[in-house]
């Protein structure tokens, strides 16, 4: 943890530094959603949300978002940009959606992706099929006030197994689609596309800053 975040610890209204992994995919939507979430929580002052491409840019971040995109491409670019070890040892919370959820797993059904192993789960890529099977649905999420969450699943993965240390937030017949482990959250769908910021806010509150 950086000296910056140590200084502001134990205070709910201070700034937070969020990095968004900007190798490929839905990067600007994640930046916009976190900026709006910080504003809603009255924490936009001293906070920042910025794209991350290189290991040095990860220094001092309290949280990292791993966006949706193509998981094989993002996995290769993580290796190319020497980010694998740095993300594995990152001390902040990680908010991962879709391709991000695949990368967070300990096991993936496909050798074309090298997962980070940060959440104890097994993930199936493209669990619902091709793009024509992509769907929107109102999803009940455990412990989330305000009713079901309008979830957007795009060539989405599911977790087929989650370890004891993992809290399952939502499960549908095909598998697990939302989990938390420690400060990390992984979602098979795209909250950054729907305008509902409740999951972003829940993640930020869990950061222990």
């Amino acid at each position, binding site marked *: 943890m950086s000296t910056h975040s140590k200084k502001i610890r134990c205070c709910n209204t201070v700034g937070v530094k969020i990095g968004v992994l900007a190798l490929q995919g*839905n990067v600007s*939507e994640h930046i916009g959603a976190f900026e709006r979430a910080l504003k809603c929580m009255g924490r936009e002052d001293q906070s920042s949300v910025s794209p991350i491409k290189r290991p040095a840019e990860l220094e001092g971040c309290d949280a990292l978002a791993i966006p949706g995109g*193509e998981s*094989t491409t993002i996995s290769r*670019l993580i290796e190319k940009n020497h980010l694998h070890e740095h993300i594995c040892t990152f001390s902040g919370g990680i908010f991962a959606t879709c391709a991000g959820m695949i990368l967070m797993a300990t096991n993936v059904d496909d050798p*074309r992706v090298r997962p980070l192993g940060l959440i104890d789960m097994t993930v199936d890529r493209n669990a619902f099929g091709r793009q024509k099977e992509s*769907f929107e649905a109102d999803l009940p999420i455990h412990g989330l006030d305000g009713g079901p969450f309008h979830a957007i699943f795009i060539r989405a993965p599911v977790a087929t197994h989650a370890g004891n240390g993992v809290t399952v937030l939502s499960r549908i017949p095909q598998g697990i689609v939302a989990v938390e482990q420690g400060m990390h959250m992984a979602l098979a769908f795209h909250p950054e*596309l729907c305008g509902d910021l409740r999951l972003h806010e829940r993640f930020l509150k869990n950061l222990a800053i």
Partner: protein
Amino acid sequence: MRLEELRFGTELLKRGFASMQKGGVIMDVVNAEHAKISEEAGAVAVMALERVPSDIRKMGGVARMVDPETVAAIIDAVSIPVMGKVRIGHFVEAQVLEVLGVDMIDESEVLTPADEQYHIDKKKFTVPFVCGARDLGEALRRIHEGAAMVRTKGEAGTGNVVEAVRHMRAIMGSIRALKGMDRQEMTDYAREIEAPAELVIECSERGRLPVVNFSAGGIATPSDAAMMMQLGADGVFVGSGIFKSSNPQKMAKAIVEAVNHYDDAKVIARVSRGLGEAMPGLDVHTLKEDQVLQYRGR
């Protein structure tokens, strides 16, 4: 969650799919082997077609949708999205590709148009579409018809980036010019460029197109790809540029890295070394009018 309440093929799902391609390279492939090379190199998706554009130019005749057998083999070979080209206006070729499980359809001027009056009514489909455009009016007409993604037309199969640059500058410049207009002027301008006024106003509010905007048509080197990104493209399509170069594996990887680090000339310099020959190029000015693909569809 009740299954009957699931919604498929919505505008949000179509545009969302396109958005997941951002910062990526989509590569033209004619068989499963090419598709595997593309995936291995880090392509975000592959585009299936019968022949790459430079071969379509050479061979002439009518260029049609790819053989369904080839599409099925490509879908089996890779885990990344598979796109396919159909002729402008050929809605049955599009229906066929949708049934085969193609993830996005390119209604493309590279193939021989099937309808000189109308483009496909893309809102009728579950699968999203990408269409080519040379300027803002054309881009907005396609979006109005239901395109979830736009790409510059460029001049495919030439290995010459000049037309892609012209089209990207035209689109980005027109959006920048909207900044100085009030609502009435924008409505007037919409009429002039033959585009729906509400889409012109939306571009002005967002400062960009309402959908993802890629570059295509003539990109042959890592520098070409990075230049299109610096001009404002969200990603690039590479057609003949990879599999008509002397070392496709190396060229594919280099273009992926150049797009990832498009604003870092040191990286572009590194990945551009020792690539071998780029695809043979064509001077666009030597083409006869009927050889210019970008004039197809408007």
